[in-house]
């Protein structure tokens, strides 16, 4: 049975897409078949992390939603992005990416016309079947919108990424309330960009008691990831970095 995992944050800039790409890559490296769908139609970006250049993209999620292609035609094999240069072993897993369009016209069309959100559900299910997936990651648009709500409904697990600041705290409680009303099976929290010197134990307790949900990772503010400038998958490049090791705990939890 494939597992569907939505990664969401109430506000932008939390490191949501980065967390999604890294977790998905870690699972693919463990030998699983994984896909990432960028449902952040208004502000897509996760394809950059996988080094999927725009000229390679002939079909994207937008085309599927407008009925001009099947969703698997918009799925690109990006396994090369997670290849380990030092290792001679071929990766046994595989990772696919369904990007959203970066063309301003295509983004505008979605905003103006909308689309049948049920198609997204049909597409996810078809993708799981066609690509024989073990894991489907949905990278959502920040805030509350239809894609997010649908993604939450159909997910086995909702991962919420937040920073330790009060705007994120308040927004996350909105998402948690919606998730509970939508009877989502499991919620995990990732606290990201924790500044140096902040009391991590106290912060973790505070977050867990505020949301009655488990904190799966406490990620430090990471200068190396900033320097990488979203050009590749951090965990692949820096497998022994504390950031990577902390995220590995989440990946491990997903396989259990």
């Amino acid at each position, binding site marked *: *049975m*494939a*597992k*569907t995992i939505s990664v969401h944050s109430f506000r932008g800039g939390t490191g949501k897409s980065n967390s999604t790409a890294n977790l998905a890559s870690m699972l693919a490296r463990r030998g699983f078949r994984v896909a990432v769908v960028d449902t952040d139609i208004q502000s897509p970006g996760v394809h950059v992390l996988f080094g999927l250049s725009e000229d390679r993209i002939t079909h994207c999620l937008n085309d599927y939603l407008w009925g001009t292609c099947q969703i698997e035609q918009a799925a690109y094999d990006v396994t090369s992005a997670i290849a380990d240069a030092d290792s001679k072993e071929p990766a046994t897993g595989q990772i696919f990416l369904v990007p959203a369009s970066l063309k301003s016209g295509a983004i505008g069309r979605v905003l103006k016309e909308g689309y*049948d*959100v*049920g198609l*997204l*559900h*049909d597409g*996810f*299910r078809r993708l*799981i079947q066609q690509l024989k997936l073990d894991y*489907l990651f949905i990278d959502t648009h920040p805030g509350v919108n*239809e894609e997010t*709500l*649908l993604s939450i*409904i*159909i*997910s*086995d697990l909702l991962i919420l990424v937040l920073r330790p600041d009060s705007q994120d705290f308040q927004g996350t409680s909105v998402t948690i309330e*919606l998730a509970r*009303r*939508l009877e989502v*099976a499991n919620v995990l929290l990732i606290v990201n960009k924790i500044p140096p010197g902040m009391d991590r134990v106290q912060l973790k307790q505070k977050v867990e008691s505020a949301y009655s949900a488990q904190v799966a990772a406490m990620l430090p503010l990471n200068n190396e990831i900033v320097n990488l400038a979203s050009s590749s998958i951090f965990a692949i490049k820096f497998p022994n970095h504390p950031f990577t090791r902390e995220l590995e705990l989440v990946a491990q939890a997903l396989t259990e």
Partner: protein
Amino acid sequence: MPDETVPFLDALLSRMKSAASPLRDTVTELWEKYRHLDDGNVASYIPELAKADPKWFGISIVSVNGQSVDAGDFEQEFTIQSVSKPFVFGMGLEEFGRDHVLSKIGVQPIGEAFNSITLDEASNRPFNPMINAGAIAAADLIAGKDFPARVTHLIDTFGRYCGRPVHVNSSVYASERATGHRNRAIGHLMLNFGMVGERIEETLDLYFQQCSIMVNSHDLAVMGATLAHGGVNPLTGVRAIKASYVKDLLSVMHTCGMYDYAGEWAYRVGIPAKSGVGGGVVAVVPGQVGIGLFSPKLDAKGNSVRAMKVCQDLSEKFGLHIFECGSAERSIVSQLSPVRSG
């Protein structure tokens, strides 16, 4: 103070749940299965109806908790025609009560065509409110001081059932009115027997208006869901008919709703339903859902060919026949819970 925005959120969440429900898949599959079924003919007794595109095909299901799934041309409007009949019968019941209405209109299936000119010889009543004679007698009971007031009452009532304002297609109305000689004859025959009031010409116009109300398959499903929900529109929470009269409507739909196929329908499909020559069908699964269907090609008895197929499939798949005593796990409502994609 209660948060007045909660219903908006509930509606949004319910829409998202429906979008992820297995019933959506079922409805889409049925649409695919029958979209190329090409049997039957588009009604042509008035030119306006003959303009319908035979390819149009809409399927809608609305549950008593307000969830809905739709497929195909569910937004395409068409004239309600005879699907209006049980609802106008309900207006008469609310205005005058069961005893008075039953003194004017019977509830006996007759197995004759919808436009037959036959009255019960002993009582002079039309046999039931689903044939034209009975429907005209029911339209006679639409209250109001004058014609505009009666039209307003009619339109408002259908608006409550649909959960949105409805309007009359004036060219269909004009066409029905100009060619409705047989209905005029039926009306005057009943006037002769004292079964309708002196304002029969006005009532006939009202009847032609009623038949020319524009709806789509989603509207029909909402109307059906309103009956399934005891008379309260599940989308708006507005009551369209007293709960105590819902069973009156469903009973006549069950026994007389599908023209002279009604008996076969009750036996094979077993869901109270009403069809119209515009190609619409409303079906009601009490306590669960309303089903709205639209496809203009009709069989020889005047029922939409594809709509009947879809109803039959849904009935079999989910055990919807009202005398089905089998398994409860096949409940159609359970199909509206979202499934995780895995």
